[in-house]
């Protein structure tokens, strides 16, 4: 075999040598293709595997950690939740609608594969500056693609985030998360057990789409990406809806031995992973695969990434049962082979053997690397920040208006009103608060969920930024009253073969792992997306934390919006706002510098525990954490979602400047409002928990009125709520729709 052959498929010379050793002979083209897709970064995690071992993956609640299609966590009463997040960045960069849509489709399959009924979707998005035409096209395309798929299939999209920064220009991030619910007994696994059992391919026909899609995901975007364009597929949410119903019906009947979705690397991945996990092998015939196009080669059938397909293993005499259920849903189910006992994946074409490789060598035993790391030189330049770099603005109101209309802070309603967030009638906290909350039918429980990740922080300090991503997610859940359960993460980074990028990656995971341990929220699954680079360089290192929390009694919940006139506003938690890495620094002063806010786990845990107990005791009218935009913005967000004004007075001590006090960023602080009658109780609770509490004003009036005072100066922002709310709500629409 010629060198160009394997190199073209993305395998290096050493990897080819490994294949020779494993097989004891030269591979044929089908086999080589199978290795090339399975050993791609996307499937094998060859560069990240060792680092990911740092994550804690278990606690008393985890039923299933990483390794399967999704992790599973116990929520009591025999119920469990399965969840997972995944990226679809590169397809979305060239065909935003379909790229994002198929990303949603893929993550939903990961969930129902486990036997769980998908009940909610979230998405985390990053784009370049909205001033660019191409970014507008990408942004609106991605949002409508997510909407198109999720709405059609009937799973509510209940939360997420969107941020804009030049670093994502040309390489947007599209991460989709799905949450499902199930009874413990219904857990089904992607394992091929039982020699002689039948292997069925169900769902859509196989076409030439996405041939070498995983290789595409494992490369930088460049001129050649244009050539590889057919890697993008068209999603069929209708087909997937039928697949969900049919597969869950089968699982309910108890006839499924093993089940796995076909995602990246298609049949090759599903057959080898299922065999590898089950300690078995498979013998399949590609001529039995229903095709969409004529004349497909066996290698194409083996690596096609056609969407909306699943691989099932059932007992031999259950084939007819499967077909009957699939018939009802007007779907096809085809027996394509059987489970064997010798650990080999054998592929035939009309009986003729066309590939024969050990399953484990494709899956678990793929090569693992330890890329080189180096402290990035840019950090020396961006780390130092002194107040002199930041001229003190004259006009407080002007700065405030600029802040609330920054696309990173402005209302995301333009996005989420395109998503059906209410279907299934379980969404109790709708988008617009810190975390979404869903009721669980037949119980008093609720589950809360959120996604968080501040790429700017991670860029400035990967270790700290990684910790903050986890802390912020846990804090958002706590604001709703929920107890954080576990994490799924999507790690979006540049090219791992560059030592500085790999250093970012390593440090981020280290920081996240530390935080996950502190909050007792193990990482039960996730996804790594490398090679997020364009000619201009890598994106901000962007870990996205998807976190799910539990509320034992859904009546004891809380949202971010103010509820009634006369409520007192308290600032809770300790911490000093700082300008480093803040939206204020970037948006007003054009600077990307400094250190992200410090995080003290003891303070953070005290605050979160205080918030949860205060919600549980029914003391709070609202709770909202301080994040991008700091105190000044957090105060405003409460007004916007509650449609109520405020009067707040802040006194300044020490050398703090008013602009930093209002718009600097901080960890471990939140705003709560409550009825004056609970003042004593909350004070007592705060003392018990060791959380400082400061009364700063009250809810009322038709204005956002915030006064900052010190001995020398006095600044007031006093603006009519109606006016500023319109600006905040309309900012994104204004930018997108010209």
């Amino acid at each position: 075999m010629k060198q160009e052959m394997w190199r073209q498929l993305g395998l290096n010379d050493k990897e080819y040598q490994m294949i020779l050793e494993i097989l004891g002979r030269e591979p044929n083209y089908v086999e080589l293709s199978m290795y090339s897709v399975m050993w791609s970064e996307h499937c094998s995690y060859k560069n990240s595997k060792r680092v990911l071992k740092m994550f804690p993956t278990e606690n008393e609640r985890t039923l299933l950690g990483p390794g399967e299609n999704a992790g599973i966590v116990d929520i009591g009463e025999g119920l469990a939740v399965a969840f997972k997040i995944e990226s679809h960045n590169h397809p979305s960069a060239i065909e935003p609608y379909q790229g994002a849509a198929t990303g949603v489709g893929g993550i939903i399959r990961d969930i129902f594969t486990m036997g769980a009924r998908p009940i909610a979707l979230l998405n985390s998005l990053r784009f370049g500056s909205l001033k660019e035409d191409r970014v507008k096209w990408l942004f609106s395309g991605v949002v409508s693609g997510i909407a198109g798929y999720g709405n059609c299939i009937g799973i509510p999209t209940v939360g997420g985030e969107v941020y804009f920064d030049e670093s994502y220009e040309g390489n947007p991030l599209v991460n989709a998360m799905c949450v499902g619910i199930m009874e413990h007994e219904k857990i089904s696994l992607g394992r091929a057990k039982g020699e002689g059992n039948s292997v069925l391919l169900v769902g859509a026909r196989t076409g030439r789409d996405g041939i070498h899609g995983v290789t595409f995901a494992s490369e930088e975007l460049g001129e050649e990406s244009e050539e590889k364009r057919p890697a993008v597929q068209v999603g069929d949410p209708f087909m997937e809806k039928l697949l969900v119903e049919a597969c869950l019906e089968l699982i309910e009947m108890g006839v499924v031995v093993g089940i796995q979705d076909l995602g990246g690397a298609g049949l090759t991945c599903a057959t080898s992973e299922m065999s590898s996990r089950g300690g078995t092998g498979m013998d399949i015939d590609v001529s039995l695969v229903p095709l969409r196009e004529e004349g497909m080669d066996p290698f194409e059938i083996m690596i096609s990434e056609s969407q909306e397909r699943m691989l099932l293993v059932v007992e031999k005499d259950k084939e007819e049962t499967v077909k009957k259920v699939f018939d009802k849903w007007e779907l096809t189910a085809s027996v394509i082979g059987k489970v064997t006992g010798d650990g080999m994946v054998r592929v035939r074409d009309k009986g003729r053997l066309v590939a024969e490789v050990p399953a484990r060598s494709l899956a678990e035993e793929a090569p693992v690397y330890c890329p080189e790391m180096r402290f990035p030189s840019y950090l020396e330049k961006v780390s130092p920040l002194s107040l002199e770099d930041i001229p003190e603005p004259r006009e407080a109101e002007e700065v405030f208006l600029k802040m609330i209309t920054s696309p990173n802070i402005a209302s995301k309603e333009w996005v989420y009103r395109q998503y059906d967030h209410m279907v299934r009638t379980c969404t109790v906290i709708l988008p617009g608060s810190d975390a979404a909350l869903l009721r669980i039918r037949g119980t008093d429980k609720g589950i809360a969920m959120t996604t968080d990740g501040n790429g700017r922080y991670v860029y400035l300090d990967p270790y700290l930024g990684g910790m903050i991503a986890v802390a912020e997610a846990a804090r958002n859940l706590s604001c709703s009253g929920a107890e954080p359960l576990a994490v799924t993460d999507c790690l979006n980074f540049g090219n791992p073969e560059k030592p500085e990028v790999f250093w970012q990656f390593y440090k981020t995971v280290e920081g996240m792992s530390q935080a996950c341990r502190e909050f007792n929220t193990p990482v039960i699954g996730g996804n790594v997306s490398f090679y997020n680079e364009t000619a201009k360089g890598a994106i901000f290192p962007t870990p996205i934390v998807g976190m799910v929390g539990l509320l034992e009694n859904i009546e004891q919940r809380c949202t971010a919006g103010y509820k009634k006139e006369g409520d007192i506003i308290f600032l809770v938690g300790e911490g000093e706002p700082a300008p480093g890495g803040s939206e204020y620094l970037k948006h007003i002063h054009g600077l990307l510098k400094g250190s992200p806010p410090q995080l003290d786990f003891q303070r953070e845990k005290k605050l979160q525990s205080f918030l949860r107990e205060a919600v549980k005791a029914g003391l709070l009218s609202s709770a909202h954490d301080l994040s991008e935009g700091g105190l000044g913005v957090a105060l405003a967000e409460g007004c916007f979602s509650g449609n109520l004004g405020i009067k707040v007075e802040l006194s300044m001590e020490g050398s703090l400047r008013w602009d930093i006090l209002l718009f600097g960023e901080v960890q471990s602080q939140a705003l709560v409002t409550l009825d004056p009658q609970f003042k004593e109780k909350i004070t007592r609770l705060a003392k018990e928990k060791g959380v400082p509490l400061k009364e700063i004003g009250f809810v009322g009036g038709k204005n956002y009125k915030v006064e900052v005072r010190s001995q020398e100066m006095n600044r007031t922002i006093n603006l009519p709520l109606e006016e500023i709310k319109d600006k905040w709500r309309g900012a994104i629409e204004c930018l997108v729709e010209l």
Partner: protein
Amino acid sequence: MWKAKIQVTLKKSVLDPQGVAVEKALKTLNYSNVGDVRVGKYLEVSVDGKDREEVEGQIRDMCDRLLTNPVIEDYTFEVTEV
């Protein structure tokens, strides 16, 4: 004045879920003689221009830049003077 009639279809190799659904529906309506169905977009664009060549060039340009995405779609068009 010229009028361009533009037909946009998904590339042959790309799945056309709408086409599949319509084909099935037609068969349920007993049109058993129906084969492949493809569903795409149709646009009519009026443009001012001095001659056919110029207009055709412009329409091609519009298709490439805005009206279609070459990643998944193909297009054809005819231009007539009106």
